[in-house]
């Protein structure tokens, strides 16, 4: 059942119900979301051959909404970045109506830039993480890839909401109504001046041109200051690496996954299994995390304090504007070829603030084009203002379509 695109494809699509919000929708997932009996290796050697023993909450809800699971596509090791990800390829080849892409740094939004579909990262705590293999528990979130913001809203409303198996979720979550977008109240979009440093001149021009569409759709564009924008990446990296190091502690070869068989004793088995279970890029990420855990814990503590400051700063900004807009990627950093942690963070520098702060963020494709590279228009909103973000995306999309058809 192997192919260049799929990690796992069932003999026939997995569908339990024929009615519901997502009736008949064909869903692509990645092998980091548990579906009972499916290979769930999260693209990682340490999980070789691991089959999930239960369904993730998102899967349970997809099934009961009438969706049909058609398979899982290849993914970057443990979901960090989009190296080797075949999700964009899959949708471009005509597979599926909706893709689930775990978003740790901006993977769902970056896949949107590559596929021409809309990419979305929901608010942290809106979707259950139960059954998600995961790497960075305080930042990661199941993201969506779909052909319209309305499709994303529909999927989100089917999957969102409290789950007794995930205690880290918000105890109450707002309703996401897929059919009627909320009133066009959110009409002020802020542009942080600080992002100019991250864009080439041509990318800046493309971004400004893209914003014309938002202005045309009736949004007021306001330049503003977001001091400390440069600190998001370092802060994300320190906390994420430390969390990843803890998360990967369970891949020891004792109960499942890859085990180095030739080891002479358990300590040797640990060292060899863990030494060979991870790829070079993830291994260096785990080393960084172990450094902050064992050698420089104060830096980790500082990063936690800084994280809260950055969140507070974003909250202040959202007192004067409803949304923030920025490109999803800078033209010069290639997310697909990011072979080192440094390259990976460079490629995702504009998407990762939403992960660090737990905010909802939508990427609209095809609006900001720098030569042939789609930089993606990213709309970010306050925590749990998912409906507002998706409604704004719908409005801009509708206006562009209207212009295009004229």
């Amino acid at each position, binding site marked *: 059942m192997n192919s260049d695109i799929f990690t796992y494809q069932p003999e026939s699509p997995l569908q339990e119900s024929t009615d519901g919000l997502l009736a008949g929708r064909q869903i692509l997932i990645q092998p980091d*979301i*548990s579906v009972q009996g499916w290979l*769930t290796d*999260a693209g990682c050697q340490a*999980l070789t051959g*691991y089959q*999930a*023993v*239960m369904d*993730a909450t998102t899967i349970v809800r997809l099934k009961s909404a009438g969706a049909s699971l058609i398979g899982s596509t290849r993914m970057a090791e443990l979901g960090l970045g989009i190296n080797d990800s075949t999700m964009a390829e899959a949708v471009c080849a005509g597979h599926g109506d909706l893709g689930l892409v775990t978003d740790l740094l901006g993977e769902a939004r970056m896949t949107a830039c590559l596929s021409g579909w809309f990419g979305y990262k929901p608010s942290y705590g809106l979707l259950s*993480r*139960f*059954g*998600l*293999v*995961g790497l960075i*528990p*305080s930042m990661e979130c199941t993201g969506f890839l779909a052909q319209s913001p309305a499709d994303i809203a529909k999927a989100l409303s089917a999957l969102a909401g409290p789950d*007794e*198996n*995930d*205690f*880290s979720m918000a105890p109450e979550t707002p309703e996401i109504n897929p059919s009627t977008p909320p009133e066009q109240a959110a009409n002020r979009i802020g542009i942080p001046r600080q992002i100019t440093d991250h864009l080439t001149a041509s990318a800046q021009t493309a971004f400004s041109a893209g914003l014309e569409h938002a202005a045309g759709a009736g949004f007021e564009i306001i330049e503003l200051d977001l001091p400390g924008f440069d600190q998001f990446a370092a802060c994300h990296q320190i906390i994420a690496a*430390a*969390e990843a*190091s*803890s998360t*990967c*502690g*369970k891949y*020891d070869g*004792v*109960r*499942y996954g890859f085990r180095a068989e030739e080891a002479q004793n*358990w300590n040797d088995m*640990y060292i060899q299994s863990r030494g060979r279970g991870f790829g070079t890029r993830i291994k260096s990420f785990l080393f960084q995390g172990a450094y902050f*855990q*064992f050698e420089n*814990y104060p830096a*980790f503590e500082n990063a*936690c304090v800084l994280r809260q400051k950055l969140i507070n700063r974003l909250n202040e900004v959202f007192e004067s504007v409803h949304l923030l807009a920025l490109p999803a990627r800078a033209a010069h950093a290639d997310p697909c070829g990011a072979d080192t942690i440094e390259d990976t963070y460079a490629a995702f520098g504009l998407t990762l603030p939403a992960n660090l702060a737990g905010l909802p963020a939508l990427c609209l494709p095809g609006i900001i084009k720098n030569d042939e590279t789609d930089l993606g228009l990213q709309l970010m909103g306050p925590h749990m203002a998912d409906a507002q973000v998706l409604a704004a995306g719908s409005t801009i999309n509708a206006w562009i379509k209207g212009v295009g058809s004229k």
Partner: protein
Amino acid sequence: MTPDNNKYEAVIGLEIHAQLNAATKLFCDCPNQPGEAPNRNTCPVCLWLPGALPRLSRQAVEKAVLACLAANCTISEESAFDQKVYYYPDLPKGFQLSQHHKPLAVNGWIDIIGEDGSPRRLGIHHIHMEEDVARLVHETEGKTPISLVDFNRAGAPLIEIVTEPDMRSSYEAMEFLKALRSRLRYTGSTECSMEQGTMRADANISLRPAGAKTFNTKVEVKNMNSIHHVGDAIGHEIHRQAECLERGEPITLHTRLWDPDKRVTTPMREKFAGPCLPDPSVPAIRMDEAWLASIRKRLPEMPAQKSERFIADYSLPAGEALAMSQERDIAEFFEAAVQQAVPPRKAANWISGHLLPALKDRGLGLSDTRLTPDRFAGLLLLLDQEKINAGAAREVLAQMLDKDGPPQQIVAQGGFEQVSDADKLEAVVDAILAEHPDDVADYKKGNAKVLGFLMGMAMKASQGKANPKLLKEILANRLDSQ
């Protein structure tokens, strides 16, 4: 070389782990029963399969809070779990969930009576919750040695009680443990048995010149499986350190294992100091006033207060009051029996003198038997009303532990009723006197001891059922009138 005992002062702190008897493990719904067939009580969460998330047990938190209240602690408004990172096969996820930065409760104390008879208040620095680890079984026999892991215990809820370095002798450490155990057991949150492994105590010990205020390097001693072993191990370690100091050897920070057979401690591994990171998946415990009040309501009267009340209300002597208040089930059993109009001292005497030894012989706890306070009171009332005699009462008590039935029924079925019919007893006495003419003659000659012998023979002839008072009276009369 024997060091002068008064030259140094010992500074002792304890770290005590107690297993909470919550129905489930701390972060999943698996039964909290480590003793079952290996790996039977496991699930994706306690095996930490990919995708598993911890679900903190409310019952475990409440039981832990009750235990903290019994140790006079202040409950933190917010406490949280951290990841204590280390790699070992008994730890399925590479870290142990424990409360390092924000413990559940702080600033407690336990009162004891010191060796000189004066009261001593010993401080508790904090109490935190954590999960237990799996059990490892190393099979070294056979061609290839193998290690097996039993995850039944992995994730079982524990509390760790960290004391202040307030204890100065092994006696104080033992008294602290006894008082703490008694109070914790009272809450019903934990069984606290060192012998059965539901309580473990490690001791940190250092010495300093008598009168000094500073602390010296401490040594940790582990692997004691009874309160007495804790006392022995501390005593031994104090002696060992004193000898080191006398020889001019420095004390280094390390851990030693107590060997109960050889009665020595031997050095173990270097003390591990791994990082502790806040866990992102277990939300902080926010203990608001309403929740805390609802838990506080379930805190029973503590043994020391009970003991004072038994002295005041039931006029028990201090020793008996202490004996009746050490264990909550015994104390409640005693009071329930007294409510049935049994004289308090009689109830206390029969509980300490007959019931508890009988339970100990059988290796049973009170709750393992069919004996209820009502039945026990019924028995003592039969005795009090002279329907049965003391010997019969002991026998009936033994039978009540082994079978189900009220004392009246057991007395009737076993024919234990006391014979107070004077005609019947006279016949018994006459027969005995007829059988032992020589002894009767002895008595007549002034050997009063013979009376006891004849009394015993007559009681035996009545199959132990004779009203002893009446029997003695009849016997004495008959002998004197012959």
